[in-house]
């Protein structure tokens, strides 16, 4: 079972690195969106520091949704998903591995680049640990929830429109608690409640999302 998990992650990572564009796309999109805001709002230091965490979080959310569409649909179209679903392991393990691989190739790069954006916005250095831990807790939840939406939209026409409509409302709690934690750190108010709630959301999605996703995919393959 662990072998199946490892092999699936291995496969996903090879595919992403071989294609290359997915990884670059996520990072460049993340940086670009975050850089657009100061250009539109003007160079007001205080305003930028205030909206910084919110901008980082919205950019993270949008850019991690950028590649979620391909996560199951590419395999669905070329028949690989059928092969994965008939491999002699619980399908949920393979689905969980794919979701984890999505985080490794979208959430993790975002995590690395978010301090760069933090510097652009002049976010005080003291609040970085909280900002980064909120992103570390939140982005895996984005991948999990995005995976459920990707599975639900599998094989549908106009998937490109359907997928964000399904996913974005579900991602709102992550966005609220994530920005709340980072803002609290900047203002010096207690950060624990927001971080704990964010952790709670992560735990809940880790527990529920893989099983819903695998059931939904099996339904789509039926």
């Amino acid at each position, binding site marked *: 079972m662990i072998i199946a998990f490892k092999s699936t992650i*291995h496969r996903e990572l090879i595919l992403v690195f071989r294609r290359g564009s997915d990884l670059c796309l996520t990072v460049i999109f993340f940086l670009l969106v975050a850089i657009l805001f100061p250009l539109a709002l003007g160079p007001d230091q205080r305003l930028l520091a205030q909206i910084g965490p919110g901008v980082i979080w919205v950019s993270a959310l949008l850019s991690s949704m950028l590649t979620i569409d391909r996560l199951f649909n590419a395999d669905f179209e*070329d*028949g690989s998903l059928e*092969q994965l679903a008939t491999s002699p392991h619980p399908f949920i393990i393979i689905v969980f591995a794919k979701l984890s691989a999505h985080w490794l190739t979208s959430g993790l790069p975002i995590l690395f680049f978010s301090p760069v954006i933090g510097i652009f916005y002049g976010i005080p250095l003291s609040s970085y640990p909280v900002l980064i831990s909120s992103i570390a807790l939140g982005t895996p939840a984005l991948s999990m929830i995005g995976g459920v939406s990707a599975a639900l939209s599998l094989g549908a026409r106009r998937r490109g429109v359907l997928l964000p409509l399904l996913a974005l409302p579900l991602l709102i709690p992550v966005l609220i608690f994530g920005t709340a934690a980072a803002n609290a750190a900047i203002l010096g108010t207690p950060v624990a409640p927001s971080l704990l709630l964010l952790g709670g959301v992560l735990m809940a999605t880790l527990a529920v999302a893989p099983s819903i996703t695998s059931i939904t995919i099996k339904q789509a393959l039926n």
Partner: protein
Amino acid sequence: MIGCMKFVGENLTCNRSGREIFSRLHFEVGSGEALLITGKNGAGKTSLLRLMTGLSRPVTGSIHWDDGDISCFPERHCQRMSYVGHADALKSVLTVSENLHLWIAIRGTTQSKELVNEALSTYGLSDLRDTPVGELSTGQRRRVALARLLAADSLMWLLDEPTIALDDEAIVILINSINQHRRQGGMAVIATNAPIDIGPERLLDMRRHQGDDFDNSF
């Protein structure tokens, strides 16, 4: 490979979006046997194969091995069978051998380089080992998909129109490998409309199992 096994379907009915495709269908395959499913387009050949894989469930009836229903032990069932469907299930950015190796790794069967190399050379793909699948022709991709069967070493092969896009040489290779597989106690279920000569086989003609509204047309 396991000695004497039987794979049986009883009283199967299959619906697709509310319409009955076939009903009262029985089949049986034993070790060393092949089951050839024939029937016109839309008769439910692919639907029946997908029931056999466990990807979809029959409306009535059951499909089982000697030791239990496939829906009760899906993992054991998947361990025993390999399915080659219409789609080749190959990744175009990966090379031929990477495709096979990664697939075997996820199946968790004992990793064996020799087995993969042997499978590739059987299908005449040795020279293309390090070529990305995206650069192959349709027929070559089909060969890679079929080479997977040899590399996976499972008891039952489920093949959906395996001869499509294959040249005469590759069809001979396919037939030889099916016969070799059967001699070793394996079984094969083949849905096809192309004449394919694989020696003694069981025949299943889908025409006899179609719903009442179909019967008038014959």
